[in-house]
């Protein structure tokens, strides 16, 4: 496989994951703004924009944080280089680059979703339409992943695509937790005290984990429980432990196919060592923020090593 094609697949799935995550973030924000007072809602939209890493760009063209501003900015604003629209266009462009490495079904899923969403996002999105638009974005992801699982050859291309997806997801989950970590700070000394359940519900919703969490914890919301769930619970497909384990599998498969281990495998082993046998108490002791920053840095280093190991660039 060409290095450029591997790069295309890796980024195609990173952007797809990022677009889906932005949709989840908006979904959680919408929920919050519907159930809370205006001040809390504004705070929530501010945090949504921060989580997306777009605060500076946003504030260059917006003075206030209202829902309609925030979601239009994240979905379709021309000044936002990482709008959902632009990300999905990048998904399609990368799919075109890697056209030979994806099946016709994957390509059609990408292309059709793109045509539909591009058309929808030509106009500003009203509150009434937001739910439909977000569903459309999530459905695009579901369609592409489904087509990929059912129709793609399990060769290097498949593993590059999945590696891109889990690198992005790790980053996203860590970022969401990190933006909200201050809500947990009191938790060590206030274990068992009443948390702002609504805030935590938002965090869980941002990773589509609210339902899974309730199932596992019989409805009790605790800071410890949530942090454990999102970092160490390898049953939940958006937890850091799950993403890391999945990424490790993809990198192992790539090393096996290429008959050589690279820097990316080495870094992955180091990351594994840091996470293995950790308890949530260890995480709190280290400091959640520090733990998340380390996770994001290691993740970025792995992504960089993948590009080097597999010659993404000339």
């Amino acid at each position, binding site marked *: 496989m*060409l*290095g450029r094609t591997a790069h295309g697949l890796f980024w195609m799935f990173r952007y797809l994951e990022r677009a889906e995550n932005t949709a989840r973030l908006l979904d959680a924000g919408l929920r919050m703004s519907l159930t809370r007072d205006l001040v809390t809602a504004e705070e929530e939209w501010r945090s949504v924009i921060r989580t997306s890493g777009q605060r500076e760009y946003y504030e260059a063209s917006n003075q206030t944080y209202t829902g309609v501003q925030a979601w239009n900015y994240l979905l379709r604003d021309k000044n936002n280089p990482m709008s959902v629209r632009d990300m999905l266009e990048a998904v399609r462009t990368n799919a075109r680059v890697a*056209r030979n490495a994806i099946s016709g079904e994957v390509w059609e899923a990408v292309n059709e979703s793109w*045509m539909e969403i591009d058309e929808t996002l030509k106009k500003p999105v009203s509150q009434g339409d937001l739910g439909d638009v977000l569903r459309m974005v999530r459905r695009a992801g579901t369609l592409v992943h489904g087509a990929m699982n059912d129709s793609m050859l399990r060769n290097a291309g498949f593993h590059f695509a999945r590696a891109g997806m889990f690198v992005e997801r790790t980053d996203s989950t860590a970022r969401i937790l990190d933006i909200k970590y201050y809500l947990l700070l009191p938790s060590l000394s206030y274990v068992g005290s009443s948390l702002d359940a609504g805030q935590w519900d938002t965090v869980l919703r941002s990773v589509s984990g609210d339902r899974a969490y309730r199932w596992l914890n019989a409805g009790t919301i605790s800071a410890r429980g949530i942090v454990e769930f999102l970092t160490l619970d390898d049953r939940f497909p958006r937890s850091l432990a799950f993403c890391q384990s999945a990424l490790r599998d993809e990198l192992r498969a790539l090393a096996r196919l*290429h008959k050589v281990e690279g820097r990316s495998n080495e870094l992955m082993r180091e990351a594994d060592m840091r996470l293995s046998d950790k308890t949530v108490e260890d995480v709190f002791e280290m400091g959640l923020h520090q733990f998340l920053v380390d996770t994001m840095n290691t993740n970025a280093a792995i992504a960089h090593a993948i590009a080097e190991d597999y*010659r993404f660039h000339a």
Partner: protein
Amino acid sequence: MAKGNAPFDEMRDTDGSVRPAYGSYCDWFDQQDNDWLRRKHSDAESKFRRTGITFNVYGEDEAEERLIPFDMVPRVIDAGEWRKLTRGIEQRVSALNAFMYDLYHRQEIIRAGRIPERLFRQNEAWLANMVGFTPPGGVYTHIVGIDLVRTEDGFFVLEDNARTPSGVSYMLENRETMMALFPDLFMQVPVEGVSNYPRRLAKSLAACAPPATDGKPLVAVLTPGIYNSAYYEHAFLADQMGAELVEGSDLRVVDGRVSMRTTRGYEPVDVLYRRVDDEFLDPLTFNPDSQLGVPGIMDVYRSGGITIANAPGTGVCDDKAIYSFMPEIVEFYTGEKPLLPNVETWRCAEEESLKYVLDNLSELVVKEVHGSGGYGMLIGPTSTKKQIEEFRKKIEADPQGYIAQPTLALSTCPIFGESGLVPRHVDLRPYVLVSPDGIDITPGGLTRVALEEGSLVVNSSQGGGTKDTWVLKE
């Protein structure tokens, strides 16, 4: 258009009766409901959009990717007619290949005085670097598209495309679309398949592998990239052949071989089906600013390290002044009279012809000898006095740059329009593969159709559409 006479219609005879080749199709068509057909027509368009069969238009922001309009009435050719055509095409293509060899070696045809030396001396497509070099297998024109038109006098060759003929993906996708829309039709009418074209192409290219090949030849398609107007076709062909789709930035010369950067390191390419023009192929030899090619590829080529398809320098064949000598060229290399005639052509380089052309501009089609894609031409009968006078000045300033042909009554074939079937002018481009194993013509081709009533311009860049092309089984 010849005055007074209606042009030859592919479907119906002059008395209105259906020609035998269209018999089964018309039986089927008459049983269909018009509204249902109209719905199918829009289905076809959304299928094309979904699969992304688009071409990019330069300089248009909003409509960056456009569809080439598809018409769902097939162009049908019966088995006997096709057999005759293929004999003529084979003869012409083998002459073209022999001509290329001769032009870059002893130039016997010029020594024999059959064509003037100036023809290639002034030809920008002629490459001095190719002199004395024989490409692997002796093949220059690996893939050729012969543009044919039909009048009441039969088929004529309008143009030879030996540089980088495009459009073959439309031949394939038009058929896929027709089979998806009207499966029952294909049960009633026995049509030759075209879908194995990519396999035939892969086999034909592999048969031209260079001496340096070790084991199974590795074939790659070289594209200028995703913003090229034909990118869809490049990706499609590579995908269908199971070949790599590479860009210039993926390639570099490593240990005397052109190699591609894979996730494992650099691996040599044996056969490069390039969809990049000669001048961009090698910045060391041609255009030094080119980012699309591979520095040093021409040296590797000349030392037997890679096959380039088509061979650099074959663009000479596309020249319309060379075209005008094709009857002589065919006879010189095959020893036979051409089976497929040329359209009568006046070379403005010759004094008497020039006079005739200038006296009859309003009735002729005048073309630039190096032009292509329907650009830079004058269609006398549909032009204004002012346009004709402007063109006259251009011809007078550079007579060697132009040839002229009569305005042909191109045959018509019905398209499915708002008010049912209406005749529109068509041409036909069959695709021909050349390898040491022989000449291989896929039974079918690309039928281009002018969608405007009376228009003779079928080019997709100027509003033409395409049709599925059926060759009936024996």
